[in-house]
């Protein structure tokens, strides 16, 4: 442990590099020669040449947005998706309420009740997309991988409060039957090599 006094007096020359600033000319002769050198060095023409070269090369980098779209990362956090169980097609959501609890924007509202068989069922699930900050906590906390973030970022609303329900977010049944529920890409889903990463929990020290 280094003492504060020693810390203040330590040798910093190892880590620090001194950058020498440019020295301004002082005498009349130096000033004149600097002006002449800068005037005749032709740097301005280098600038002209570079932009002309780019114009002739015609290497356009514009993305014409509504017509062309850039690919986005699979971990991009756009509109939420609610997934179904692969085996049965039932909803994965068990109504545990963790997403509601962790939501720092307080935009998730989940209502549950006792179902006919005495099990907990979700009877209402709304997300206020106007409040949602797309932080991804709900997807991260979900124990059933039921809520994830998809990649559909093009949703607009006429009002600030824009509610969406589970029925709109859940994978439609016809698409699910056609095998179109994308399981792994998206924030909150397990990674493609999740099985390889599973390790047995060490029990004995």
């Amino acid at each position: 442990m280094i003492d504060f006094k020693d810390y203040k007096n330590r040798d910093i020359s190892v880590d620090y590099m001194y950058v020498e600033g440019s020295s301004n000319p002082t005498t009349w002769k130096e000033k004149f020669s600097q002006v002449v050198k800068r005037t005749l060095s032709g740097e301005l023409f280098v600038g002209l040449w570079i932009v002309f070269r780019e114009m002739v090369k015609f290497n356009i980098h514009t993305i014409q947005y509504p017509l062309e779209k850039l690919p986005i990362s699979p971990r991009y956090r756009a509109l939420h998706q609610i997934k179904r169980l692969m085996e049965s097609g039932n909803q994965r959501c068990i109504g545990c309420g963790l997403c509601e609890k962790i939501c720092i924007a307080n935009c998730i509202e989940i209502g549950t009740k006792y179902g006919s068989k005495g099990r907990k069922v979700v009877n209402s699930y709304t997300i206020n997309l106007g409040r949602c900050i797309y932080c991804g906590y709900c997807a991260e906390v979900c124990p059933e991988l039921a809520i994830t973030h998809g990649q559909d970022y093009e949703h607009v609303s006429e009002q600030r409060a824009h509610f969406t329900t589970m029925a709109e977010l859940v994978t439609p049944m016809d698409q699910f039957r056609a095998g179109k529920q994308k399981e792994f890409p998206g924030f909150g889903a397990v990674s493609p090599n999740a099985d390889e990463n599973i390790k047995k929990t060490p029990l004995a020290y």
Partner: protein
Amino acid sequence: MDSYILWTIVKVVVILTVFSALAGITTYFERKVLAFMQRRLGPQHVGPYGILQVAADGIKLFTKEDIVPQNAIKPIFKIAPVIAAATAFIAMSAVPFLPGIIVSDVNIGILFVVGVMAVGMYAPLLAGMASDNKWSILGAARTVVQMLSFEVVTGLSLIAPLMMVGSLSLIDINNYQTTHGWIVVAQPVAFILYLIAGYAETNRTPFDLLEHEAEIVTGYATEYSGMRWGLFAIGEYANMFTVAFIAALVFLGGYNDMWFIPGGLAIILKVSALIFLFLWVRAAWPHVRPDQLMWLCWKVLMPLAVVNILITGIVLI
């Protein structure tokens, strides 16, 4: 006499129309050239290749709400953009655009052009002072400082070629070059000085401090909207064309035939090249600080111009 007046009116109307349209078309080319040089596409969606963007901009300018600020001095505020456009077009009346196309061949043509373009300085000055806006008044102050200073360089740089020709008429200057070749060969320094001063007087990029967005919003034009602002823009582009035509006429051989190219086409090509240079420079170079501008004008360009005149005089004698 009547036919002379009629013919003059026709020429005036044609020149007004053509150059108002050219101002719009030049904005399109400016945006396209700048975009290509910066690896962008530029206007793309209005019409094929965005060519109707000019029409869209025109409709927008004409139909935009015309705002006169509450505390502005209203008559002066309203008349300032008219001065900008009017002086720019009046200056054109002594410029021979094509062989035989000149509104009035006054025998002091170039003096008239330079003088009327200098009167155009009142437009930004009055606009800035009448707007009741800090940015406007800063822009107006910069305008006066910059334009008055570079007026000196324009005048002095043009004196050297005029000494060689011995006439102030642009047609005489043009005819001189049929026998003696392009004046730029004999006066390269004057040509460069004139171009630099021309860029400063038309507020083009290396010297666009009087309406630089990052510093003073748009300078004197901050409070203007719609067609009043449009008149300033038309005036600026018309001035660009005048500067380019004067440069082509005085230094680059004017409308004389070039090898196999007929004279009318030759001067259009020269002016196009000079206008392209305006756009090219805007894409490539950063703008200078106001103090650097003043330093450049009074400590470099003006002495150079005076020395150039002296040397020309000694050689002529």
